[in-house]
């Protein structure tokens, strides 16, 4: 059925705490993503069965919302701010440089599994525009060169370890 064989018992506690009704599908999917880092197919089937939602509907919801990931996440989550303030301060150029450097696109993970990159609507640090956030830490006043060098530093650090 799926290439993933997830330990479904990790979800038992979630099903105990949250009422097993279709209304709670999004909440349960969010909890599952917290546990597994993404939404493996077998997990989605399992959630559907428990809550009484058809697999196609579960998939429908999982693909509708940008928060849900269908593939494993990299070690570093890089969020590129695409808010209006960042846009007028040159975020497109920063984004292009980052995508080119990592050879990937928004919502995807790099081949080495190190970076997952996401373009998000607004990180709310508009005065630091353009901004990106790496595992919760904000880096502001970016230029394409500065953004790439920050990522290159992380790569170097990881390669050394």
């Amino acid at each position, binding site marked *: 059925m799926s290439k993933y064989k997830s330990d479904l018992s990790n979800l038992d506690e979630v099903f105990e705490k949250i009422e097993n*009704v*279709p*209304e*709670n*599908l*999004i*909440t349960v*999917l*969010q909890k599952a993503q917290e546990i597994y880092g993404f939404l493996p197919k077998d997990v989605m089937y399992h959630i559907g069965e428990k*809550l009484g*939602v058809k697999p196609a*509907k579960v998939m*429908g*919801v999982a693909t*509708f*919302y*940008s*928060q*849900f990931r269908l593939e494993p996440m990299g070690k570093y989550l890089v969020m590129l701010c*695409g*808010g*209006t*303030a960042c*846009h*007028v*301060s040159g975020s*497109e150029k920063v984004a292009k440089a980052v995508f080119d450097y990592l050879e990937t696109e928004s919502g995807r993970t790099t081949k080495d599994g190190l970076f997952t990159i996401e373009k*998000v*609507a*607004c*990180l*709310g*640090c*508009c*005065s*630091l*525009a353009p*901004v990106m*956030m790496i595992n919760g830490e*904000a880096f*502001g006043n970016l230029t394409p060169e500065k953004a790439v060098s920050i990522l290159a530093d992380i790569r170097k650090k990881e390669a050394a370890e």
Partner: protein
Amino acid sequence: MRIIIGEGSCGIAAGALKVHKALEKAAEGKNIRIGITGCVGMCFLEPIVDIYDEEKLVKRLVKVSENDAQRIVCAAEKNDYSDIDDLVISKEDEEFLSLQTRIALRNCGITDPTAIDDYQKRGGYKALEKALSMSPEEVIEEIKASGLAGRGGAGFPTWYKWSAARKSESKTKYLICNADEGDPGAFMDRAVIESDPHALIEGMLIGAYAIGAAEMIVYVRAEYPLAIKRLEKAIKDAKEAGFIGENILESGFSCKMRIKSGAGAFVCGEETALIESLEGKRGMPRLKPPFPAQSGFKDEPSNINNVETFANVAWIIANGGKEFSKLGTENSKGTKVFALTGKVRKSGLVEVPMGMTLRDVIYKIGGGIKNGKKFKAVQLGGPSGGCIPEELLDTVIDYKALSETGAIMGSGGMVIMDEDTCMVGMSKFFLDFTAEESCGKCVHCRIGTKRMQEILTRMVNGEGREDDVLLLEELCKAIKDGALCGLGQTAPNPVLTTLKYFREEYDEHIFEHRCRAKECTELLTYSIDAEKCRGCTLCAKKCPAKAIEGEVKKPHIIDKEKCIRCGACSKVCRFGAVVVE
């Protein structure tokens, strides 16, 4: 003495947590308390540290770094601030706050968002007490007298919605707060929840009492983890204090409260889509009628208001609707919060009375344009709004006056653009956004926004066609007529307003392959001014396409065929010899 650190998302991003740690360490064993507050709204000066003597603000320090901690603590201890003079906020920057009128943000940056007693000390939950002593109809009358209208963007009278939900008969009505702030460039709601969560809770409780709701739900954007954390804490504290739950303050009124975290979809800011999402489904708008006031969440009567709307409610009940309606214009009462960002010198949160001109907000409060550049446009209302040009800067902040320009009041995003911003590029930016966020239910919105996005992409790439503007206009009209919800109906606004006020930029892109803001890289040509070039060879070395040739100490030449317009040469040239056109 108390030292308070501003720890909203903005402050934290600028390093407030590090400053906090350093201050705590420096204050160890000393008679100084370290505390936190939310966002005071001066993003451009973060991290901000305030020194209080009891309740009196003694000094406000800005752009503080962790290395300043020691001397700040010393100064506070001695009550002598000569040593930290360089950190004290300037007179000019203080005006950023003194020119504002704060109601929704009344406690932001003052109160400790994690302490309910701090909120109560400032009169918190007194308005709830007062409301519970009134009849629900009287509460609605008070809101009617205030003239409060929905701050989410549409500006629908709040009392009317409440009254409709009040009249719907059912045992289980819901009061929902829309905190799914998705407009890229707006962060007012986040700031209110992070900085003053109890103001939201109190406003919602009054609303719940007015309509007779059994449960209150706050639908918060998932991207706001700190807001969710603070609100969770506030709800727990309010429950323990007896403000939420059974028989609130012995009034016989009972109401539950919970948070629902959204999962990232702009369309869920539309109320019926939000309800679908609450029910665990894809967030696709429903056909209206029936309106949520008749049949909303779980087919029960539901009332939905925006965070800022609720944040005004307790103040209105405490001070009276009349007091609120004294502020503003004939059509729009009270104040409005804006997230002022972009190419403005002082960016941050501003709350101003309705009726103030855009010019005053941008120049008096915002301090004008950054780096001495020229103002081009102000964008209001995000992807649903429009761009207002300089000649209309004396337009006042008022629902009707702003709609007449083609823009909208919106939820409060106010992005300033200067001469370096391409208006066609701006339209494309918003269409990229709406095309991505269209839920796909209505054909006009799903396919129409995609087609518009394609046309605009053509233009910025220098491949615009002669009749593209006509085609854009036709699509705008079709989408406005054919879409079910607000997202679709307003999606053409950014294009329509830029076509109205900046038509010449579209024409330049199409017919002259020229971008006056020099932002559309595909339309630029690079050359070297032989008079200025010293032949240092730096550009030739930097050029990734090997398009620059020349001998040392002799003027270089760019091969336009090979040039990929990356701009690397103009960045490295120290003599300003690279000409970009």
